[in-house]
């Protein structure tokens, strides 16, 4: 209280007392007592003098005629003083001042109209409601408890029940006389006074009879008979909301074992109803947060259960969803969004049935309650880039939970890192909530005395997960003091200042044995199990009866589609507001395209004079790089998504929101981003490298597909690992195999024989999206460019016919000669070679289109024994005819192609110029790649089959069944369930199937489960077989 105010008060006291009869000794004594509570000894004298001067004490009585005149002057003075007080004191303080004034008058029972008039004026100026003023007046003045008959009064006496007609509340207690409590509703304060003869103690100090005391947070009254009345109990009686809230919370944790085998909690039992603010304290490592997590259902106890209204929170989750709120120690905010947006989207996810206006109102309401309404349009920012203060962040975190009004709220160190002012605000807010019927558990560390006293109950945990105390906070100090037989053990708080020192508790609990030199040793005087034994003796936990109805909740979740939509909007907004993220992600692709394309563009024409697309030897590598870029961008953009959201997901896990909706929203945003990125990449790449524009769309689609695949892959690793660093380390591990097995860098037939095979892409490469994407791109670029498109079919027959007539038939004829030269050989090796060759000839011919005149022979099985010179002749003739046939096919195909070229070039009005077309649309290096021109062996024999090594782009695959999807690399088409599908379409389908499978894995979090099972392995090995069997 400032000097100025004290002076004003002194004047006020003086004015009142000097009215109607002047100052009496008792009144003066009351004022002196008041000064004693507010001032030090030296100043009291000064103020008493001041009081005497104003009140005219000791000057003798004035005549009554004069007194009327002064009273008008005094009234004006009073008004002035009250206005001054009004400006500096809070409403609560003003109520106290008012009560003091009334008490002052009551000391002498000199209730003259003039005195009361002045007090009334003061109450008016203080803006105290008239009704309330009357209540206060009655409460202070009366000496008969029964006369107080209104709702804000609670009487405690030995009577068992009261008259139904009375408005006041009543509690039975072992007490003579009556203890009266009054609530001042407007400021939510409680006052008490005792009317009787016993000696009761308020917070350890004796109560004077008929003296009004402030009954503040955490106060206790001990009656002479030993009853204790706690603040929280009292408040519960006044609060209708608590009475109507149906909530029971029963925790009995017998044991909680960590995966490492250590025990986290032992025999913890907690039982509470609605409207309590309960603190959890303990030394570090005592299991405070663990207890909180177990109670919130985040961790399942090894033995024991947690019941909310009789529903087990672990096994009957659906019955209680939305009932629990959890505010973790970390910030669970979306940093890119504003304070308002954070709350708004959260509310939107919780209240499907609210319209925009209602949502806005609700959000604003919560913001105002938490004093955040002035900050609502500020971006939350991160701790390094602060826009709102730590206390505001904390309050926002709490607001996010409050907005949906969970019945039970858990907070993990909500005050850590906050100033004492902010801490008090936060706890005050929680206290208020508890008064509205919420059950609130708070892990708290080093609370200040004021905060400590605000709790209704305190749970104190000791090292090793032992409970050490469970009860009213002030009693904790006395309990521990008593247990260690300390002097002064009845005093829980400081006699003069009312402060409690919670540190004392831990000093007692953790007191160390001292060695002979007076140095504390590591050994504790009383070990945790010993404290626990004491605890067991002393505390009997009365189980709150389970309420058999579903707990109250206001949660109404939107449907899954709507959830997706909300997630998408929220995420998009947060991404849009992150300028760096946006800029990097949108510029990355065009920048890479620019770098890549500009570097590999050179004067490629044969004379080296200009750039001609046809001769750009870097084009095949460019296509591969494009795919790697798409994969890389896809991975990096998604790899952090879930990790970054994990905290928010944890918070929202209490809402039971759809995981699928969340993932779908991620996919929607990432796919959109991928589409934009790949499009900008392709457009710029095409522009610089002068790739045909009609190839743009398929090129883009392949990259988009690849990028989407990478997105889902990235989300998988993002959901599986715990830190962003691990995820980024994973990226090369995922990307490099994609590069190795893409098909360009290392030819598939020149890989380790464990994986390599001839004539088909190795299975391991089939697992790589890059290989499918690259093949799709290359085949499409080669087949469908404007130059090649009209001639592809001709060239295909040309090449296939040429291969058969010039190479295959010769190979077969060589084998035929070998067979018939060695028909009679007895040498085993040779015989086997003969058999093998015979098999090769037959199967090769059987698979061929041309069988004319030889169908019958091919239909039967050929064995070495059945071969005759006659057959030899027949086969020789057939091979000659075969060769002739394919020569014809070849010539025909060439001729048709030449005719087609001639036709295009000489068509009326056409500007077709084959050279120009080829220069602009065809790429020689790409053609060399798909025609495999560098291969010297045009035909090879591998495991009883002949394989064509050249021109893979012209060979149609020969599937063995409808499900045989495998083909050689660069096959022009593929087999999809028995039908021919272009490689482009087929490969894209494959990548999309891979993407869908990855999504399924993501949905069920398979990768995370797999990794977790590895994590658990070490423990299992340590524990031997028993546990392994269980799992």
């Amino acid at each position, binding site marked *: 209280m400032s000097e100025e105010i004290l002076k004003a008060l002194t004047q006020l006291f003086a004015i009142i007392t000097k009215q109607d009869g002047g100052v009496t000794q008792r009144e003066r004594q009351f004022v002196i007592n008041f000064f004693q509570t507010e001032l030090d000894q030296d100043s009291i004298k000064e103020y008493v003098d001041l009081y005497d001067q104003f009140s005219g004490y000791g000057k003798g009585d004035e005549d009554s005629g004069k007194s009327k005149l002064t009273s008008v002057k005094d009234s004006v003075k009073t008004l002035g003083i009250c206005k001054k007080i009004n400006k500096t004191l809070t409403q609560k303080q003003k109520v106290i001042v008012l009560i003091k004034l009334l008490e002052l008058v009551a000391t002498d029972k000199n209730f003259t109209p003039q005195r009361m008039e002045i007090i009334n004026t003061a109450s008016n100026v203080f803006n105290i409601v008239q009704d309330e003023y009357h209540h206060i007046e009655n409460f202070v003045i009366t000496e008969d408890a029964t006369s107080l008959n209104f709702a804000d009064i609670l009487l405690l006496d030995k009577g068992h029940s009261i008259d139904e007609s009375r408005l006041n509340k009543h509690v039975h207690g072992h007490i003579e006389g009556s203890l009266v409590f009054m609530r001042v509703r407007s400021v939510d304060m409680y006052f008490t006074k005792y009317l009787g003869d016993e000696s009761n103690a308020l917070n350890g100090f004796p109560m004077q009879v008929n003296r009004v005391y402030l009954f503040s947070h955490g106060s206790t009254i001990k009656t002479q008979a030993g009853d204790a009345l706690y603040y929280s109990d009292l408040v519960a009686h006044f609060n209708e909301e608590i009475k109507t809230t149906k909530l029971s919370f029963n925790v009995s944790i017998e044991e909680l074992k960590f995966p490492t085998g250590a025990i986290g909690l032992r025999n913890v039992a907690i039982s509470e109803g609605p409207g309590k603010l309960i603190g959890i304290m303990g030394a570090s490592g005592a299991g405070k947060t663990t207890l909180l997590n177990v109670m919130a259902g985040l961790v399942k106890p090894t033995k024991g259960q947690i019941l909310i209204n009789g529903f087990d929170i672990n096994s009957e989750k659906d019955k209680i969803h939305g009932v629990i709120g959890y505010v973790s120690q970390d910030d669970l905010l979306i940093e890119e969004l504003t304070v308002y947006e954070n709350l708004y989207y959260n509310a939107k996810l919780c209240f499907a049935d609210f319209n925009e206006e209602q949502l806005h109102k609700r959000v604003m309401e919560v913001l105002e309650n938490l004093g955040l309404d002035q900050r609502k349009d500020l971006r939350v920012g991160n701790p390094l880039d602060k826009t709102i203060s730590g206390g505001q962040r904390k309050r926002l975190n709490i607001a996010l939970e409050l907005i949906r009004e969970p019945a039970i709220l858990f907070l993990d160190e909500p005050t850590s890192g906050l100033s004492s002012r902010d801490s008090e605000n936060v706890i005050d807010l929680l206290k208020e909530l508890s008064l509205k019927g919420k059950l609130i558990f708070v892990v708290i560390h080093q609370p200040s005395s004021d905060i400590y006293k605000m709790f209704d109950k305190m749970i104190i945990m000791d090292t090793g997960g032992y409970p050490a105390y469970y009860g009213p906070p002030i009693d904790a100090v006395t309990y521990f003091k008593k247990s260690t037989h300390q002097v002064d053990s009845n005093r829980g708080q400081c006699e003069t200042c009312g402060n409690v020192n919670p540190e004392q508790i831990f000093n007692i609990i953790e007191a160390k044995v001292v060695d002979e030199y007076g140095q504390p040793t590591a050994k504790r005087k009383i070990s945790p199990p010993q404290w626990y034994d004491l605890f067991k003796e002393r505390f009997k936990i009365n189980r709150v009866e389970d309420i058999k109805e579903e707990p109250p909740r206001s949660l109404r979740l939107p449907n899954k589609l709507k959830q997706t939509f909300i997630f998408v909007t929220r995420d998009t907004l947060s991404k849009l507001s992150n300028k760096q993220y946006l800029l990097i992600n949108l510029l990355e692709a065009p920048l890479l395209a620019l770098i890549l394309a500009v570097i590999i563009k050179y004067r490629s024409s044969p004379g080296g004079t200009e750039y001609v697309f046809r001769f750009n030897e870097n084009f095949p590598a460019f296509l591969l790089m494009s795919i790697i870029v798409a994969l890389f961008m896809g991975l990096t953009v998604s790899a952090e998504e879930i990790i970054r959201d994990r905290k928010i997901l944890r918070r929202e896990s209490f809402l039971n929101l759809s995981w699928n909706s969340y993932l779908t929203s991620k996919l929607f945003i990432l796919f959109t981003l991928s589409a934009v990125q790949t499009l900008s990449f392709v457009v710029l790449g095409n522009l610089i490298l002068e790739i045909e524009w009609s190839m743009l769309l398929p090129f883009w689609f392949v990259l988009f597909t690849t990028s989407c695949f990478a997105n889902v892959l990235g989300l998988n690793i993002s959901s599986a690992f715990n830190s962003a660093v691990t995820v980024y380390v994973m990226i090369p591990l995922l990307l490099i195999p994609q590069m190795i097995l893409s098909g360009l860098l290392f030819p598939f037939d020149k890989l380790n024989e464990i994986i390599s095979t001839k004539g088909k892409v190795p299975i391991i490469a089939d697992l790589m999206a890059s290989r499918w994407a690259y093949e799709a791109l290359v085949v499409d670029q080669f087949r469908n460019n404007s130059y090649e498109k009209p001639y592809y079919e001709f060239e295909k027959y040309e090449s296939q016919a040429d291969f058969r007539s010039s190479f295959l038939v010769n190979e077969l004829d060589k084998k035929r000669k070998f067979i018939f030269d060695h028909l009679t050989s007895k040498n085993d090796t040779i015989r086997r070679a003969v058999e093998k060759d015979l098999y090769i000839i037959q199967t090769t011919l059987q698979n061929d289109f041309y069988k004319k005149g030889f169908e019958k022979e091919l239909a039967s099985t050929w064995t070495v024994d059945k071969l005759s010179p006659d057959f030899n002749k027949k086969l020789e003739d057939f091979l000659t005819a075969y060769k002739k046939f394919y*020569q014809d096919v070849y010539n025909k195909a060439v001729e048709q192609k030449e005719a087609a070229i*001639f036709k295009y070039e000489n068509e009326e009005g056409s500007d077709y110029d*084959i050279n120009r077309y080829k220069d602009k649309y065809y790429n020689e290096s790409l053609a060399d790649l798909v025609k495999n021109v560098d291969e010297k062996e045009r035909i090879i024999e591998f495991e009883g089959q002949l394989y064509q090594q050249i021109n893979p782009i012209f060979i149609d695959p020969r599937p063995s069944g409808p499900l045989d999807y495998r083909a050689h690399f660069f096959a022009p088409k593929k087999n999809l369930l*028995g*039908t021919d599908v272009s490689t482009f379409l087929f490969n894209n389908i494959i990548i999309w199937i891979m993407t*869908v499978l990855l999504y399924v894995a993501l949905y069920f979090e398979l990768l995370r489960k797999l990794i977790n099972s590895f994590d658990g392995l070490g423990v299992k090995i340590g524990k031997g077989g028993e546990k392994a069997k269980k799992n």
Partner: protein
Amino acid sequence: MRIVIFGLVLALFTACGSGKKSDEQAFLEGLDSAKAEGPSISEGVIGDILQQIPSPLEISVLLKESGKKYNAGYLNSPDNISKYNSNFKKALNLGVYGTDLGYTNIYEQNQDGVKYMASIKELADGLNIGQFFDIETIGRLATNSKNLDSLLLITTQNFNSINHYLQTQNRSNLSVLFLTGGWLEALHITCEVAALNPNNKELQETIGEQKIILENIMLLLSFYKESDQNMASLLTDMEELKKIYDKVNITYTYKESTFEIVDGVMVIKDNSSSTIEITPDDISNIKSITTNIRNKVIS
């Protein structure tokens, strides 16, 4: 959501499922019934005529003996290869490059020779006759001028075997184009050299002698004029040349051959001689028309 995705994939499968007879089947069956169009003259006859046309390399030797220096400007640049995208052009220019390679060889211009060989190999690949060129061997030989003989031998052999192979493959049309290209380039170079040596009788006679070869070539081209429009238009160009050559007279005087013993070996000596009447005007006309046709071929 997942159901929707699976549904989409399934729809895709079924949409693609409406199978049709494979293209290959259709194409080959159509081909089986229709006989490939070709010249009405048998391959054998064509082969015989082809045999009578001397290799262009033989002309090259004559050029060197004329004492003129190497001039790459006479030749078709190997970089032009990108312009040859139809088989017709490829075959003609394979011949052109063959002659150019011979020309660089006799002047021992190995650096240029290697470039021509690379272009020849590429064209041959394009015609599916690349297997006759072992570019590595040729490249190795070309680095050393002492290997000139073997290089020439290999190249000549290659051209011969290509001709032979093409005939066995019923692709004599390519042989014809190939020889036509080679001959045209040789004639072009000879004309260029002759223009610088107006007094070299031998060169002029050589040019005149080409009348006989031109007639053969035109005969060959005429076999294909019905079936191949490109060859028909080439034939039309050749007819222009023929008109000039009509003014050139070749009189052949026959004399009994005699036997002579040279170093103990009996040799048959041809005593017949032919006289060629050709005017400088004819030569310059031939030069300009040849250049025209050649420019069309190599462009």
